[in-house]
């Protein structure tokens, strides 16, 4: 009983940290060094993959995996998969407002369901999946390294 309560408190506390400190995260459009801030906020661990056009810093937690795509020292794309999405307010940083406006416009009335493709002036956001396996990605088309397609972001 005591152990369970402690576990619940610990879980609750970890969630509070994520929810209450979103702006300490790294974000789309920010330097590669900010990925470490995300790792701390998510309480995950990072592994790095290097491709010819970019590097991928992958943060893994018990609930989700976030991949941050970096080129010229800038996070130009993020992708996620897991039981829930990451906190998008934090992950999108200054691009969240664009996303919010596009999402609000798309939610103005009934629309077909399944996957969503949203386009702001500078950012593209796509989400899909089903409860238990949620997937999404966001990228800045103008910062995509030449030769890279959006299909490579996953």
């Amino acid at each position, binding site marked *: 009983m005591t152990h*369970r309560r402690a*576990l*619940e408190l610990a*879980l*609750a506390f*970890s*969630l*509070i940290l*994520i*929810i*209450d400190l*979103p702006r300490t995260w790294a974000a789309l459009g920010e330097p590669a060094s900010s990925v470490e801030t995300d790792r701390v906020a998510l309480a995950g661990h990072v592994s790095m993959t290097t491709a010819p056009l970019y590097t991928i810093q992958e943060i893994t937690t018990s609930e989700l995996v976030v991949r941050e795509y970096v080129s010229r020292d800038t996070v130009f794309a993020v992708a996620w*998969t897991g*039981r*829930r*999405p*990451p*906190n*998008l*307010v*934090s992950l999108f940083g200054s691009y*969240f407002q664009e*996303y*919010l406006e596009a*999402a*609000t416009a*798309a*939610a*103005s*009335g*009934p*629309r*077909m*369901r*399944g*996957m*969503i*493709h949203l*386009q702001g002036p500078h950012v593209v956001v*796509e*989400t*899909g*999946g*089903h*409860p*238990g*396996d*949620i*997937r*999404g*990605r966001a990228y800045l088309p103008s910062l995509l390294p030449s030769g890279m397609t*959006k*299909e490579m972001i*996953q």
Partner: protein
Amino acid sequence: MIRRGCRSVLFGMAFTVLLGCGNSGSSGPSGPSGPSGPNVLAITVNPASAALCTFANALCTHVTICQPGTSNCQTIADVLVDTGSSGLRIFASTLTVTLPSSTMGECLYFGSGTDWGRVQSADVVLGGEPAVFVPIHVIDPTFAGQYTSGGQAATNICGVAVVDSSPSQVGFNGILGVGLFPFDSGFYYNCASLPCTAVAVAPSQQIQNPVGLLPVDNNGVILTLPSVPASGSPAVTGSLILGIGTASNNQPSGVTVLPTNSSGQIVTRFHPSPGISTQNVGIIDSGSSVLFFSDASLSIPLCPGSLSFLYCPAAPLSFSAANTELSGIPSSLVSFQIVDPRPLLQSGNAAIRNIGGPAFSPGVFDWGLPFFFGRTVYVGLSGQTSVLGTGPFWAY
């Protein structure tokens, strides 16, 4: 003992409510040629005279919700039928029955939207089945002050841009999740005091697939829908049958059974062109309005404007894909076409079989509602056994 007694009384009462509500267009069996019985719910794309469930390929039914242990019931029409999720969700603004108060909230993430609201217990009546006592999701963006009534972030506990805000905004009164799993994969919060805090919740208090709680017809469901022509149909009606092999009207024959992984996924080998085969994660989801798939070898134009999530090919395209169990056997080849959907949508046809869009995640093949037209699809509930085996599985 007391609850059991209430149940049988309630069954009789609730059934009376159903018959007495006068909503003949969407209640009861699907017609003279369709299956009938207490385990059958009519399911309809674009029900006549409905103000909701009118967007393309919105498959809906109705459910009855009662104040637990009483005959105080409400029949709710225009509830989306979703094999991609589990549990019943109804907008608070639609509910007129009073449910036991609750301070527990839930974020439930879908591919194309997020629901926030209270977790409250109700007696839920599906078709003419006995009522089941089950926690449901009462969708309410304003619960615990998290979002505005329009779904805009206030405290934003779910961490998303917007949440579903009202029936008129999303186009339905709620979602009946009759998917592969008994529980809903949601995130629960104690909102007795603010800020809400994440909590681990005992299974019996979680939102559950009501099918699994039925006394007999509890091992899964069957969806059967008529085929539609290439030009689409203004509306179609079929049946949601509760139970697999539990009654005379739900005996399977000649189907391929595809067991899934623990996430409800199969393998879909897509053939974008002859000689090419790519492996995808396959899901079968009546709540997805179209077929979502991608392949690096494809360059199908997207539709303009608000339909930019759909393919708009210049001429009809024919494809096939094989659904298999994770081991690769058995295998079932499915052929389909993709056309420019704009003329079909403009014609007012709501049931469209040859409509698709890109899966942003190249590894996912989402068999949305078009897959269900002209098929009988079996959803084997995880952990339950039927003549088709033990769930989770798809069969068709």
